[in-house]
């Protein structure tokens, strides 16, 4: 099964994080990504630019509304993701718990639809 691991963290100014801390975090992500890739379970993964760079689009009655900022102002914002292919939710949860951001943010684990004719509410 494929699972999306969505990485949410409190929005913060990356430049205000001390350099050693930045290096530590980058290194932790590097190690994690390497481990995930080596296990053969990784499908994709990316980090997103901060929400300050986000633009939201809505089309209503044919009219396109473009707004500056993320979809919703929330306490934690989406900062990146991993897409993995594992056998069970337990395995997905294990990988999610190992994501460095789980230490200060929240990882939402969502199964990916593979069978489009049997999607339940």
């Amino acid at each position, binding site marked *: 099964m494929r699972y999306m691991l969505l990485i949410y963290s409190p929005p913060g100014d990356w430049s205000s994080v001390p350099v050693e801390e930045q290096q530590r975090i980058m290194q932790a992500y590097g190690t994690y990504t390497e481990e995930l890739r080596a296990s053969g379970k990784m499908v994709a993964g990316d980090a997103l630019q901060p929400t300050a760079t986000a633009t939201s689009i809505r089309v209503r009655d044919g009219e396109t509304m473009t707004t500056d900022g993320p979809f919703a102002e929330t306490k934690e914002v989406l900062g990146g993701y991993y897409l993995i292919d594992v056998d069970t939710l*337990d395995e997905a949860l*294990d990988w999610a718990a190992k994501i460095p951001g789980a230490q200060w943010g929240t990882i939402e684990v969502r*199964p990916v639809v593979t069978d489009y004719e*049997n999607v339940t509410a």
Partner: protein
Amino acid sequence: MGHDRGASRRHRLRERHGIDELTRAYRDERAKCVAILGRVLGDLDLAEDAVQDAFLRAAERWPREGVPANPGAWIVATARNRAIDVIRREQTLARKTELLARAEQLPQDEEAVIPDERLELIFACCHPALAAEAQVALTLSLVGGLTTPEIARGFLVPEATLAQRLVRAKRKIRDAGIPLRVPPEHVLPDRLRTVFATIYLVFNAGYGPPPRGDLCAEAIRLAAVLAALMPDEAEAHGLHALLLLQDARRDARVTPDGELVLLADQDRTLWDLAQVDAGRRSLERGLSLRAPGPYQLQAAIASLHFDDEIDWEQVALLYGRLLELAPTPVVALNRAAAVSMASGPEAGLQLLDETPGLEEYYLWHAARADCLRRLGRPATEEYERAIALAPSDAERAFLRSRQDLLAAELEQRHDL
């Protein structure tokens, strides 16, 4: 004539035996069958429907045609055929092919010994990815075999709400890929805690007030199954022991009018002493594994309460150990109450006042009031606070009676 009578008697006996076996199989084999079908098919809803259908067939056939040699295997084989019928009607080809391939793996031999995979089922039902109320409902439904109306009544929720909760939980297990298996070592302690908590929640709902004995009995049965399936898990025995011991006092702790009775005032003839023995045996089994835990400690405390002379010092000591493992305000409160019995109300009061965060908890006020009463001091405010915060009529009535007792005692002292 004689031949006819003999034949009809045999017929009646077969019918009786068929019904008895059906009842037994439903109680003892149903969860095993659901577990096997659920694991193989990866769909608990489908598994449960197929097993239910197989039992309906058994109800038609066993009383007439006799009970099969291995009722459980018969149910699994019959449920397998039913599942295959249902799967054939599936619209999506890919899903149909996958499910049929899975169903083919189910045992079809009616004589086969079916594996006991209830533990796998219990862990799936109590998976932390499900909400606590869904865990409880699923466990009672799939492992306990309780009907939706029975569970809805037990937890005072509308039947439709509960039915929906069950459907959603079963779908999440299927769609999110929650596995039916015993969790690996590195998460087992966490997962076990959730299983214990679920069973305890069932028991608590039954314990009341008002008591609902069927839920208590069901929780005890689940705990017994768990202890039998995990014989090396000390806390599984501890939980089983705790439930047996608490339940042994069920009839004595509430009057027929629903009033709470204090331990010291309980009619000991209403205690179920056979169950106390059973609980103490379970506790011994747990303690012999030398892996202490909160359920064993609570069971040991409950066990001490059945002695003629309660060793309050020992009780206070055990609560102290429990407080180290489970540092909750409620445990601190119980420890203070035990200390007040072992070392006097002054010491108890002091400990109570040192326990913060309980101002909204009625038993904290009740315990302070009781210490003050025993010191011969007024406690009107404490009792009023406790009564205002108490969760049920039975508890309010009890607190009022204690308040009246104190008033009478103070009156008497005043008269002297």
